[in-house]
């Protein structure tokens, strides 16, 4: 119990420190009024706008107002859309979540078999080619790959739509693209683009796991027992090499959701990443701050859960902390 409270307290501290850093960082850049107001406005209009946004107050006063709001679940109102920043972000969250899930699913479905093959035959042609491709996946810039995918599959071949979300279907009162054929077609390219990096990561993890597990005694024993090779690989090997893959993917999921910015911008996918970019361009401070705060909370929560699970699995972690 002491361990849980300790972890919780640490998480809250991280959020508090981030709130200060994010707020000051974002408020140090430019002047939103310059970006928003018509250049033809006269001084009276400009002064009135500054006052309406509360930008005439000193920084500490603005920060206290923000903190007060944040404690009541209100992270400010967008300068541009005149809507609560949190609602703006949550409205667009399903689009990003859908994209991130599709990407992670692809990474697992494609990455694990390829990783296992590369692990079983590390010196074969297949193994070497897979590893070369995974290096490309790591090192090619996302926006370039996105543009290339679009040029090939949308412009030259005309197989898939280039941008946007397409038709959506309704589930739990939320609009999802994967429920319609048109939506799925729109989802495919951005998901592949976003999945590329994660697939490479999964391939590497699966390969390393496979190589480690394959030399274990229980694999040798299973083979000696006369089990078929598919059964050895699918049951004995897969089960054991999946542990690190699942752990890393869980942690990485947060970053896929939070940083789908480039893919969303390239494919005009109406998620939170696209919202973030346009908010940065227009200096819509409340939205930027709210986005960063929600991201911090997402990561802190994921880490907290992971810590709890580790503690439940491994008694040594608990004992060390309370000692």
């Amino acid at each position, binding site marked *: 119990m002491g361990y849980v409270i300790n972890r919780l307290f640490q998480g809250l501290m991280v959020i508090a420190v981030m709130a200060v850093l994010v707020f000051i960082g974002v408020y140090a850049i430019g002047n939103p009024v310059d970006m928003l107001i018509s250049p033809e*406005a006269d001084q009276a209009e400009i002064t009135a706008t500054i006052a309406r946004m509360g930008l005439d107050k000193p920084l500490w006063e603005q920060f206290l107002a923000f903190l007060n709001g944040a404690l009541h679940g209100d992270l400010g109102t967008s300068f541009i859309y005149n809507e609560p920043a949190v609602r703006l972000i949550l409205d667009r969250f399903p689009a990003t979540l859908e994209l991130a899930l599709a990407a992670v699913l692809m990474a697992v479905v494609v990455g694990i078999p390829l990783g296992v093959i590369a692990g079983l035959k590390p010196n074969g042609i297949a193994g070497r080619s897979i590893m070369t491709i995974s290096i490309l996946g790591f090192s090619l810039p996302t926006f370039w790959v996105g543009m290339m995918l679009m040029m090939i599959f949308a412009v030259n071949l*005309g197989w898939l739509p280039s941008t946007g979300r397409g*038709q959506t279907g309704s589930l739990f009162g939320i609009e999802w693209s994967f429920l319609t054929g048109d939506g799925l077609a729109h989802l495919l390219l951005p998901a592949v683009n976003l999945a590329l990096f994660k697939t490479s990561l999964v391939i590497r993890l699966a390969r390393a796991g496979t190589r480690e597990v394959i030399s274990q005694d229980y694999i040798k024993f299973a083979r000696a027992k006369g089990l078929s090779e598919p059964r050895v690989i699918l049951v004995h090997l897969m089960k054991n090499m999946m542990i690190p893959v699942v752990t890393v993917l869980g942690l990485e999921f947060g970053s896929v959701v939070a940083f789908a910015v480039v893919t969303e911008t390239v494919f005009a996918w109406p998620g939170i990443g696209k919202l973030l970019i346009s908010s940065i361009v227009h200096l819509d401070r409340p939205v930027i701050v709210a986005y960063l705060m929600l991201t911090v909370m997402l990561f802190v929560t994921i880490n907290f859960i992971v810590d709890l699970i580790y503690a439940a699995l491994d008694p040594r972690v608990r004992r060390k902390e309370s000692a």
Partner: protein
Amino acid sequence: MRKQLIGTTALMLGLLASAGAANAADLRIGLSAEPSALDPHYHNLVPNNAMFTHVFDALIEQDENQRLSPGLAASWKAIDDTTWEFKLRPGVKFHDGSAFTAKDVVFSLCRVPKVPNSPSAFTIYTKGIEDLEVKDDLTILFKTKTPYPLLPTDLSTIGIVSAATGKFTGPLVFKKAGCEGVESYPSTEDFNSGKAMNGTGPFKFKEFVKGDRIVLTKNPDYWGTKAPWDTVTFKPILADGPRVAALLAGDVDFIENPPSQDLPRLRQDKNVRIVDGLSNRVIYIAVDSGPAPSPGIKGTDKNPLADPKVRKALSLAIDRKAIDQRIMNTQAEPAGQIISTGLFGNNPDLKPDAFDAKKAKELLTEAGYPNGFEITIGSPNDRYMNDEKVAQAVAQYWTRIGVKTSVDATTASVFFSNRGKKVYSAFLAGWGAGTGEASSPLKSLVACRKPDIGYGTTNYTNYCNPKVDAALTEALATIDDAKREKLLQQSLAAVAEDTGIIPIHFEKTPWAMKKTLTYTPRVDQQTMAMEIKPAK
């Protein structure tokens, strides 16, 4: 044949429903910026104004050259120096079928100052109205405090909404301090959700999915020329490359602002049509003309830019034609003044300074700077077409005549705030004449800085020439169009005389579309679906 086959197969797979050939009367447009709201009175910004004009009409319309033409007002005239009579168009119906009357006009003008949290309010266009008198359902008298020739121009920016969207406690009476008889106005949210999207314009509202699309349908009962499209879908595709790709892939039929580096290639594509036209935006370099030493200048203790000869030398040193050819891919017209060719007030006698490095050097020597000096040009790098590259080119030209120039280019938000703090001795920026006539740039860019009367609001370089201000002030109080235009031209000539500002070029705005479409370019850079026509 092959295309057809692919199309059919894809449709069968249910994959490609939207990328198949579009219905003849459906139009899909890729926007380069997304409107922040559909509320016509919320945010005075080009993307918003262009969007609301599809659904809401103003009393007066601006044609493609921003000259005024009748809209919901069939005619208007000044009865005396401070009174205007507007005759409204009879028989106009809102989308819900109700009749348009003077009450809707009063209601709309009353709402403008009452829009909560407007990031850029339209009150700058309504504050000239001192009082309103509704003579009958189709006649309104507008009173101004002083002679105010820009009243019709100002009214052309205000979308007329239906009074039926408000709640009333009594008869509606216009008061400058706040109208009487209104309990509540529709909120911005009511417009975004479509509840209050009841206009008289050529299109009706259908759907708004933020970040993804805006869908409008044809208004079959429109009073003017009916649009050739049954349905128009606007998709914001903010990144340049993907917007072009969407056009090439056939996902949209029409895009605004194709990037200038793609234009040469697009012009060769036989399936694509590019149209371009002069915009109302001038790109200029403002230089610190004040007597005090300037922060960005080295190599002298005085401010050399205070001398008109030096400013003229800097202007002569720039090869505007080469900038247009090499950097702008011919998407610019060299400028000799701050209001575009063809707009009200443009002075045809003011030609762009021809490139003459020798004369520039002589002028510098005459002014007492034979060895030049050092200067830094501030510039945004993501605001105007090729802004940083143009600033770099200017720096090269200036360095060539001995004025050692470097460029400090940053993102627009940082640039604007630096500029406001007067960090730059010289900066490159642009000005779009929102009103489409010369008083807009004159008042903001070169008039002596008097923020309380709206003079020199963007004049961050201490330029102050009484001759410019005198002609401008008189123009702003002259109702007669011909006389006013003369005065504006005089004011522009006075700026050119002592090179108060260094104009570089007027930007041309390109639009790209399928070969089967055509568009008449607009100087205000707006994309209007009703003006996109099937090509003959």
